């Protein structure tokens, strides 16, 4: 494809999408021809992952229950795999692409969940606020009820705004100072949700008078419930905990959107700017990258994924409390992306699936078997944190780049019709095995702030 084949306007856009989709088949055949083993293995993997929720729910679960117990993730666990995979993709944008270590990512997850709670629950009825718009509830139901399909975009916008707001004060900070400030935000946000259950205040701003007397804004310790489930009209499907494997597929749908958006961002001007900042912020700035804007975009866009995840989690469970959102969740998502391979979208998805599986299915399963057959042994579920901790220690020591590290971006070139570059190259494509440090971490480490004395900046 050459530049001249891309026209202008929406028609050209549709044509491009069409040719891209058509090109997928072609690319697949090419993959089958050039790297048959890899392509077949990947196809089987994707097929298994896509079919698994249905198969497991319909046959395997009964088999496991009645014939032989297996460590099979159930519908809820699978749904949470997709939720955490979406979050891992988002955190990967901030920490993996842009190299900004965020230890408070859970804050955005919480905000997303509470946005869903505020927009689709009877919560505001106590304030006399009743509003139903296309919601899947009977007319006259108290509270605010918007459909999930509106809640998610609103959550994305709200969370992205908070991402930028919380990111703004950290722009000058680097390395572990940034980590600590984000950690602080991650602690404050759930506390705010927990504590704003009896708000009394009266503010007068010109003509605007706000006065509250012990108003419950956030549901306090109990949180908010019930929250409306996602609902698909026409097909009449309610994606709640009783809907079997269907919520998993809604999760997969949201995950696919997340992957598409993240990949498109990665392979674009903004993605390159993020990586440049990750590699060397000063050099990036000198090469014309507006670092302030670019970092804020990383915070905002990265956070918005947690908005999707949070809104879906709250809608799926039908409830939210601030207890869901503590530091260990932030760390869990961080471990997912480190384990999977920070910087690589497929790696972090695998990291999320693996970790949710180990946490929610494998360890409880082993615990159950130990209880059944060797009750005197300690229950491994008690060693959850120990196992996580040791995993982190071993990873940092022996494979800091993760299991699927960020690969050479070969696909991009071919996608843009520049296969000749590849053909002309005298060197193989995967050069990244020679590197010791994972991407995002220059070997010299990160300094806390921009150098301010000539001494520090000597080598500039």
């Amino acid at each position, binding site marked *: 494809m050459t530049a001249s084949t891309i026209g202008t306007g929406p028609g050209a856009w549709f044509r491009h999408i069409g040719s891209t989709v058509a090109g997928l088949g072609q690319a697949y055949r090419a993959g089958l021809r050039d790297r048959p083993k890899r392509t077949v293995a990947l196809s089987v993997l994707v097929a298994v992952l896509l079919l698994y929720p249905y198969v497991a729910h319909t046959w395997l679960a009964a088999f496991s229950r009645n014939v032989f117990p297996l460590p099979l993730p159930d519908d809820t666990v699978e749904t949470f795999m997709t939720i955490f995979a979406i979050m891992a993709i988002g955190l990967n944008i901030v920490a993996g692409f842009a190299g900004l270590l965020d230890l408070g990512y859970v804050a955005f997850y919480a905000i997303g969940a509470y946005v869903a709670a505020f927009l689709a629950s009877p919560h505001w009825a106590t304030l006399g606020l009743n509003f139903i718009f296309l919601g899947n509830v009977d007319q006259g139901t108290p509270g605010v009820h918007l459909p999930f399909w509106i809640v998610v975009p609103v959550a994305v916008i709200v969370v992205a705004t908070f991402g930028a707001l919380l990111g703004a004060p950290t722009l000058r900070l680097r390395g572990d100072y940034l980590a600590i400030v984000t950690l602080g935000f991650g602690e404050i946000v759930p506390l705010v949700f927990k504590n704003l259950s009896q708000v009394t205040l009266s503010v007068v701003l010109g003509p605007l008078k706000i006065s509250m007397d012990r108003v419950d804004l956030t549901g306090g310790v109990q949180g908010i419930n019930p929250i409306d489930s996602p609902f698909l009209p026409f097909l009449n499907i309610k994606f709640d905990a009783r809907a079997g494997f269907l919520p998993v597929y809604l999760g997969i749908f949201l995950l696919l959107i997340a992957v598409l958006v993240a990949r498109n961002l990665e392979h674009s001007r903004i993605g390159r*700017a993020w990586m440049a900042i990750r590699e060397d912020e000063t050099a990036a700035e*000198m090469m014309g990258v507006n670092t302030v804007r670019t970092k804020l975009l990383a915070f905002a866009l990265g956070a918005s994924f947690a908005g999707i995840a949070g809104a879906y989690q709250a809608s799926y469970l039908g409830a939210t409390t601030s207890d869901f959102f503590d530091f260990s969740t932030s760390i869990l998502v961080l471990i997912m992306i480190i384990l999977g391979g920070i910087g690589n979208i497929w790696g972090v998805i695998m990291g999320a699936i693996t970790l949710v599986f180990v946490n929610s299915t494998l360890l409880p399963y082993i615990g159950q078997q130990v209880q059944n057959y060797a009750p005197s042994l300690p229950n491994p579920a008690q060693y959850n944190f120990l196992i996580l901790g040791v995993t982190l220690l071993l990873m940092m020591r022996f494979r800091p780049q993760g299991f699927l590290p960020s690969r050479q971006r070969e696909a991009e070139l071919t996608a843009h019709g520049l296969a000749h570059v590849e053909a002309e190259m005298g060197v193989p494509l995967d050069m990244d095995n020679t590197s010791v440090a994972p991407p995002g971490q220059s070997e010299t480490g990160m300094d806390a702030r921009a150098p301010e004395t000539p001494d520090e900046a000597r080598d500039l």
Partner: protein
Amino acid sequence: MTAQGNSAASAGQAVLPENLLTRSVDDAALLVKARGVTKAFGGLTAVNNVDFDIPRGSIVSLIGPNGAGKTTFFNMITGYYVATAGEITFDGQAIVTRKGNKIRSLKPHEVTALGIGRTFQNIRLFGTMSALDNVRVGLNVHLKSRWWDSVLRTPSMLREEQATIAESLALLELVDLKDRADTWARNLPYGDQRRLEIARALATRPKLLLLDEPTAGMNNSETREMTDFIRKLRSEIGLTVLLIEHDMRVVMGISDRVTVLDHGEVIAEGRPAEVRANPRVIEAYLGRGAAEAQAQG
């Protein structure tokens, strides 16, 4: 490529005035005009009241012993440091200017957008990005597409990306690195990294190229290739070049004018031969520097 000497007046390049000294060239013929530029870090004055002109189309060198303030001066032109006092204009636009009692400086990325590209003394490439993507980052400043264009893959964004790749590959070809386009920058050999840095700087489409010790760590033939290449940039692309360099043979062979800094002040300025003969320079710098160059050679 044959060296054509300092008077190379090939296509598109204006003939340089005879006298290139600071304050003796018309403003219209100047690309950079710096007046009274000072930078103090706490008690230490790294650059003190420096006047400095760069005529269009010239290759100007800034030399001086270690710690003389050369890189600090560089960093003020590029907006990385905010000057303590003084004014700098570039192509008629203010980089450093005085507003009331406050000194204002453009941000580095704004300076880059105006048309100043640079390289670094210690190579600062984006290590785990391909050579091609390193160059593409340099082009970022000229791209129009926004993040939502990227998400939606709009036609304008795709066209822009294709143009970006084509331009970047052309630049890689210029520095002889086209066949390494997909190699991670940090896996390139040292000399390739130096040239890739220049390609990345050229991607910002600069009018002025700032080179901070481009031949550091190079052997004789590599150095010769680099000096030829710098001349080629001037003669073929019409770039103006400001050079910080320790290797006196490079400086003397390539420069239209040499300015010597010592302890943050200009102690001499003129044609290479004049500066070489200046007793103050010999005292402050050249005596030792030349001796070192001899020893290294």
